């Protein structure tokens, strides 16, 4: 989900860039040097995941996964998503320079909110509560991204209202799929490697040389 070049007006682009820059600054400040390889690799995984197409009825859609990225990285989702989007702009010309800020904001802000709200539930609770939190994280982060995208379009021009509604509505099935995938993925990680869900900051007790 992204907004192409040439659509938004400068006040929207500028405020998007300013908020994205602020979020990235917070993310970088919280990100320790030793956690950069981990963040980079998750950012790369986020990039690759966006190339994975899953079937929805007769059509298919690519995954967004900003919910999972948020749950795994916390605030570091901002720089991670910024970097992944810049690479997409570089290689596929998806998005671009002037829209980098708004696109980062619309993907990363829901990711961070999803982390703040659902992360505690996911680590502290088990069973249905944790699953529900996983589903909600995946579902709501895409929904929220859609809403921000729609808001940007409508702020830019009232005439874009219908386009905005259309975009949000075609994302509805994707939200459900993202919810399901996030739920199972979180369940998988809880079982296989719960330390990954400890957020990037106190990551993995297994490497004292790094955590020291």
């Amino acid at each position, binding site marked *: 989900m992204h907004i192409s070049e040439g659509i938004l007006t400068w006040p929207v682009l500028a405020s998007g860039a300013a908020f994205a820059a602020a979020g990235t600054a917070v993310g970088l400040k919280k990100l320790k040097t030793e956690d950069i390889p981990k963040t980079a690799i998750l950012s790369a995984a986020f990039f690759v995941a966006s190339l994975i197409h899953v079937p929805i009825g007769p059509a298919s859609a690519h995954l967004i996964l900003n919910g999972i990225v948020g749950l795994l990285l916390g605030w570091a989702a901002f720089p991670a998503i910024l970097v992944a989007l810049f690479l997409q702009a570089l290689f596929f010309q998806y998005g671009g320079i002037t829209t980098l800020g708004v696109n980062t904001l619309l993907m990363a802000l829901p990711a961070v909110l999803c982390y703040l709200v659902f992360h505690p539930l996911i680590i502290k609770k088990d069973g249905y509560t944790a699953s529900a939190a996983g589903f909600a994280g995946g579902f709501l982060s895409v929904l929220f991204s859609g809403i921000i995208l729609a808001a940007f379009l409508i702020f830019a021009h009232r005439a874009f209202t219908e386009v905005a509604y259309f975009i949000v509505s075609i994302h509805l099935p994707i939200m459900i799929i993202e919810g399901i995938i996030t739920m199972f993925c979180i369940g998988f990680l809880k079982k296989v490697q719960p330390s990954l869900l400890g957020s990037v900051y106190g990551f993995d*007790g*297994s*490497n*004292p*040389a790094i955590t*020291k």
Partner: protein
Amino acid sequence: MDNTTPPDPVIELDHIRYAYPGEDPVLRDLSFTLNRGERTGLLAPNGSGKTTLFHVIVGLLPISGGTIRILGRNMESEKDFVWARKKAGLLFQDADDQLFSPTVIDDVAFGPLNMGKTREEALSVSRRVLSFLGLSEFENRITFKLSGGEKKLVSLATILSMEPEVLLLDEPLNGLDQATRTRLTGVLESIDASYIIISHDIDFLLDCTDTIYCLRDGKTEKDTTVHVHSHDHAHMMGHIPHQHK
């Protein structure tokens, strides 16, 4: 072996212990010494703690008992290990873990630059190492586009450019074809450094090392030490397919 020069220990491990959190110890009461000029092989089954041993030597994993001395210096804090890592070059099993820079020269120069060398010094030592390995034309190649064998040789270059006094090579043959194996064997024979090689390829160890230890039950077993030139001992390994040179 030449018995006239007094032994000059490069790595001394004295009764070290290591256990991953919440698990049984992988290394228990392990003692081992590598002297200058020695080329040692470490033969052991999967999961016996070989890689752990290397990571312990350079302080990536903290030991729970015993002492480690590198070039006579006691390893007590992270600061000691930071120093030791420049003296002991560790070649990782998977070259994709070692190479991260966009181009080969960036990666080879990474270590020297970290050691405080100027750009010119770092470039010159990197180029020297690349040419020693026959990789001069690889300088501006993109690391991820190299073949498995090329990646392994470039990884070795990234270690050699730090001019270490001892090399720790973790399964250097993993996934290499015959041509690259031969090339690597040739390189190791002509290198002027002490080294320890972990491998489960006994032919390779016989070619490239003077002494072979076994790691069993978290200890190196001195009684199974094999001197390559001693036929008795070599035959103890007779159940593993190998060749005598």
